[in-house]
C-alpha cells in the first residue's frame, strides 16, 4: 500500500494503481477524455496532465504508476498552462456547433473548455473539414468534425463488446473513425454504448437525433425489463416544468432516450441496444378503458364485477405476471394467494432476430422478475393446473394463449396494452406500466433494484397492488 501525496494531501493507493485511479478512489478529480474506468489506457488526449513535484515536465495521470512517496500536483501553474494548451488544440478543428449538437449540455469538451481554457481560439486559419452524418451503423451516425479521436469507441468494440467493429483510418488530423467493411457494428447488440462514452457529440443516436435538448430532460432511475439481467437504466423524459403546450402534448409523457445507470453489481456502466429501445415496449398503444365482454364500463364497475366473480368461483386459476414488481407479487400472494391456484406465466418470449443469450449481459429469460415470481409461487405446469372444473381464470399480463382456457371458465384479464383479447375477457381491467409506478425487481442473480415513476398514471387505469386489495374483499352476506 504505497502512500502518495496529491497536492500535499496524503493518499493511500493500491500497488498496481495509476495516479488517476488513486486520485479517483480518494475523490480527487483529474480531467480526462480518452481514459475510461472500464477500458484500457490510451493516453492520447493528454488532458489528465499532472506534475510530479520538482520535475519540469508533465506526466499523464492515466498511465503514471503510483510509487511510494510520489508527490503529485494536479493544479500547478505548469499543469494549468498545459491543460489550457490542450483545450486550444482540442477545439482547434472542432466545429463548435454546440447550438445544433445533441451532446450540448452534457459534453465533456464543452465543460472542460469553460473550465480549463475559456478563451477564443488563437487560430485564424480555416478548420479541417471532414465528414458529417457518416452512417456508422443503422443506429449510429458519426460527425467526424466533432470527433476528438479519443478512441474510446474503438476500444469499447474491441475490449467490451468484442465485435471489433470500429477502427481508425487515415492519419494525423485527417484520421477518421470508421466501421469495418462487413458492418459488424449493425450486429453488435451493445453498439449504442459508444454514444454514451463519446466525450463529444461525434457519435449520435439516430432515434434521438435532434429530438430534444438534454437540459429540458430529466433522468428517472428505472430497470430495463428486457431480460432477467435487470440492468439499471435512466429513462430520460421531459421535465414537468418544461411542459410543452403548443406542440404534441404526447412529448410530455414520452420516453426520449434510455441510458445506463452505472451499477457495478448488475451491468456496470453498460446496457444493450434493446434497453435503449424501451419506448418500443412501453409506448405501444395503451389500454385505458375497463371493459366487460368488450363493453366499456367504469373502472369501479369492472373491479366490482371481478370481485364478485372471484368470490363466487369454486376452482380458480391465476396466471401471475413475471413483469409484476416485487410489491405487486407480494400483494397478490397475501391478498389472493389462498383463492387461486397460481402459476407463473412467461409474459415475453424471445422475439425473432433478438439475441437470445450471450456471455456478457443478455439473458435468455426476456422478463424482468421471474426470480421473485418463482420464489412466491411454485412453478406448476399449466396443463396440470387448468382442468375442466376450472371456472375462473385470472390472467395478469401479456403472453397468454386464451385458447387454453377451459370453455366454461370465466376470464378476468389485467393488461396494460391494447390487444384483441382485452374484449374477449369477461372482465378487463387496465393496469399501469412500469413507468407509471414505483417498485422493485429481483434479477436472476437475486439482486434487487428499484424503479421510479416517470409519468403520472391515468385515473382510468388501476394500480395492480391496490387492485389486489380491492379484489380480495369478501362478499358481505346480506343482513
Amino acid at each position: 500500500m504505497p502512500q502518495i501525496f496529491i497536492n500535499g494531501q496524503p493518499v493511500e493507493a493500491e500497488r498496481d494503481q495509476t495516479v488517476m485511479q488513486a486520485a479517483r478512489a480518494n475523490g480527487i478529480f483529474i480531467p480526462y477524455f480518452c481514459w475510461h474506468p472500464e477500458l484500457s489506457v490510451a493516453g492520447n488526449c493528454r488532458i489528465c496532465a499532472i506534475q510530479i513535484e520538482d520535475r519540469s515536465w508533465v506526466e499523464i495521470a492515466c498511465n503514471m504508476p503510483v510509487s511510494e512517496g510520489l508527490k503529485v500536483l494536479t493544479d500547478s501553474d505548469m499543469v494549468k498552462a498545459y491543460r489550457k494548451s490542450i483545450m486550444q488544440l482540442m477545439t482547434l478543428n472542432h466545429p463548435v456547433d454546440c447550438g445544433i449538437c445533441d451532446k450540448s449540455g452534457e459534453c465533456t469538451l464543452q465543460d472542460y473548455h469553460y473550465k480549463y481554457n475559456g478563451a477564443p481560439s488563437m487560430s485564424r486559419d480555416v478548420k479541417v473539414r471532414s465528414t458529417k452524418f457518416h452512417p456508422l451503423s443503422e443506429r449510429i451516425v458519426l460527425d467526424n468534425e466533432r470527433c476528438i479521436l479519443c478512441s474510446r469507441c474503438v476500444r469499447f468494440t474491441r475490449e467490451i463488446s468484442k465485435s471489433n467493429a470500429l477502427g481508425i483510418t487515415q492519419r494525423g488530423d485527417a484520421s477518421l473513425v470508421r466501421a469495418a467493411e462487413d458492418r459488424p457494428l449493425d450486429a453488435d447488440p451493445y453498439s449504442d454504448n459508444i454514444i454514451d462514452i463519446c466525450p463529444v457529440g461525434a457519435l449520435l443516436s439516430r432515434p434521438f437525433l435532434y429530438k430534444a435538448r438534454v437540459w429540458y430532460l430529466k433522468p428517472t432511475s428505472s430497470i430495463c425489463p428486457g431480460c432477467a439481467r435487470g440492468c439499471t437504466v435512466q429513462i430520460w423524459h421531459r421535465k414537468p416544468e418544461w411542459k410543452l403546450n403548443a406542440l404534441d402534448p404526447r412529448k410530455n409523457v414520452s420516453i426520449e432516450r434510455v441510458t445506463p445507470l452505472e451499477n457495478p453489481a448488475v451491468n456496470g456502466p453498460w446496457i444493450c441496444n434493446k434497453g435503449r429501445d424501451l419506448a418500443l415496449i412501453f409506448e405501444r398503444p395503451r389500454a385505458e378503458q375497463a371493459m366487460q365482454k368488450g363493453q366499456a364500463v367504469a373502472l369501479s364497475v369492472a373491479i366490482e364485477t371481478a370481485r364478485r366473480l372471484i368470490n363466487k368461483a369454486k376452482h380458480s386459476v391465476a396466471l401471475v405476471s413475471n413483469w409484476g414488481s416485487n410489491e405487486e407479487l407480494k400483494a397478490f400472494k397475501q391478498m389472493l394467494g389462498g383463492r387461486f391456484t397460481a402459476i407463473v406465466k412467461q409474459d415475453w418470449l424471445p422475439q425473432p432476430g433478438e439475441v437470445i443469450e450471450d456471455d456478457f449481459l443478455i439473458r435468455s429469460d426476456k422478463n424482468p422478475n421471474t426470480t421473485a415470481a418463482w420464489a412466491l409461487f411454485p412453478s406448476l405446469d399449466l396443463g396440470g393446473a387448468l382442468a375442466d372444473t376450472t371456472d375462473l381464470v385470472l390472467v395478469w399480463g401479456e403472453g397468454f394463449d386464451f385458447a387454453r382456457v377451459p370453455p366454461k371458465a370465466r376470464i378476468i384479464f389485467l393488461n396494460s396494452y391494447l390487444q384483441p383479447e382485452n374484449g374477449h375477457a369477461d372482465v378487463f381491467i387496465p393496469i399501469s406500466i412500469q413507468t407509471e409506478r414505483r417498485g422493485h425487481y429481483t434479477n436472476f442473480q437475486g439482486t434487487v433494484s428499484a424503479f421510479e415513476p416517470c409519468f403520472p398514471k391515468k385515473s382510468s387505469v388501476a394500480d395492480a397492488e391496490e387492485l389486489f386489495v380491492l379484489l380480495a374483499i369478501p362478499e358481505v352476506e346480506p343482513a
Partner: protein
Amino acid sequence: MPGKPLLMTFPVTATSHTLADYRARGGYGTLVKAISSMQPADITKEVSTAGLLGHGGAAFSAGRKWGVVNLNDRQPHYLCANADEGEPGTFKDRWILENAPHLLLESMLIAAYALQVRHAFIYIRGEFDVPYQRLAAAIEEAYAAGYFGERILGTDFACDIVAYRGAGSYVCGEASGLLSSLEGKRGYPRNRPPRLTVQGLYKRPTVVNNVETLANVAGIIANGAAWYKSFGTAKSPGTQLVSISGHIATPGVYEVEYGYPLAKFLYEDCGGMVHGRKLKALIPGGISTKVLTGAEVQSVTFDHQSLSAAGSSVGSGGMIVIAEGTCMVRLLQVMLRFYHHESCGQCTPCREGMGWMHRIIDRVVAGEGRAEDLDRLIDISRWNDGNTICGMGDAAGYATIGILAKFRDEFEYFIANKRSRFDGNLECLRSS
C-alpha cells in the same frame, strides 16, 4: 576518410555484399567465437563496456538497453533491427543493408545469443528496394549456410529471422510504433511505462536497435571493448555513418569517427560547398535536430558532446548542407509539411499542432503571414515538447524552434514584404 573506419573497411564491389565475400573478410568468425567461448551475459557486458551508443537518433546506451532484459524470466525475448530509416536526410542504414547485410545478420545473431532470443526481426522500410533484395538474399544465404534455424553451428543455440517490410510511415521508425506495426496493428507508438525491454513485441521483453548500432556489435565482440573505445572520443566512442546531402560537392555516405572536426569533414572530405557557395546552415542529424549556422559549424567537432554543447545533436547522421541564398521560410515549410503528413494522429498536441503549424507556414509563404504567426509556431512547438506519446511532436518542435531562433529575421522579412529575401528558388537555379 574522416578518421578510422569501423564499418566501411572493405572496397565495395559487385559481390562484396555476398556471403562468399563476407566470409573471405573473416565473416561469421565472431559468431563462432561468441557461441563457443562466451556466456550471454559476457556479451552484454562487453557491449556495455565498449560504450556503444544508439545510432538511430536518441544515442541511448545499447548495453544499458540490453541489460534491462532479464535472461532468467522464462519468457520469450525478441530482437528487432530498426531498418525503417525514415528521417529526412538519412540514408546511412541503406549502405549497410546494401553492402554489408551479413555484418548485420552476424551481429544480430550475436545479440540474439546474448539476449536469448529465438526469433529476431528486421523491420525494413517499405520504399527500400535494392536493400531489401540484398537483405533477403543474404538471409537465404545465411539459412543455407546453417547460421539460422535450429542447432546453429552444432550448438543448442537456435534463432530464426524475419525481414518485415513496412508500408511507408515515418512514425513506424519509432521503436514502439514499429512493434505495433510488426504486430500487424496500426503503427501507433505506445505510452511508456512499460518500457519495450519490459513489455514490447507481443507484450514480451524486446530490444529494438538501429541497424548501424547492431552492425557494430560484431566488431566489438571480435576485437574487444578496449579496441572499440580506441575509436572516437572518450564519451562518444566509435564512428557514425553520415549521409550527407544538400549543397555539398560530393554527397553520399561517409563514416566519420567521433571527434572529427565538422568543418574539416565538410570542406576536405566532402569537397566543400557546391560551386564554392558560402555555408549558411547545417542540419547535423536529420531534420529533427536543431539547425546550426555556418559560423557555429566552424568550431564544432562531430561527437555527441560537442554538438549538444552547440545546441544540437548527432541525431541519425543525416546531414543536410544549406548554402547561402536558401530561403529558410520555404525550408521550414517543407519540413512542416512532412511532419503534418507523417503525424500518426494518436495524441492531441501532435495531431492538431502539426496541421496548424503547416497551415500557418503555408499562409506565410503565400504572403498572408501575420506578426503573431512566429510566436504561434513557437507556442505550438513548446506545447509538443515532451508532452506527446512519442518523440515526433518534440522533433518537429525542435526543428521549428531551431530555425526560428537563428533565422527569425528572414521570417519577419517575409511577413512584412510578402516575399522571400532571396528571389527565386535556389534549388532550381543553375549557378554559372
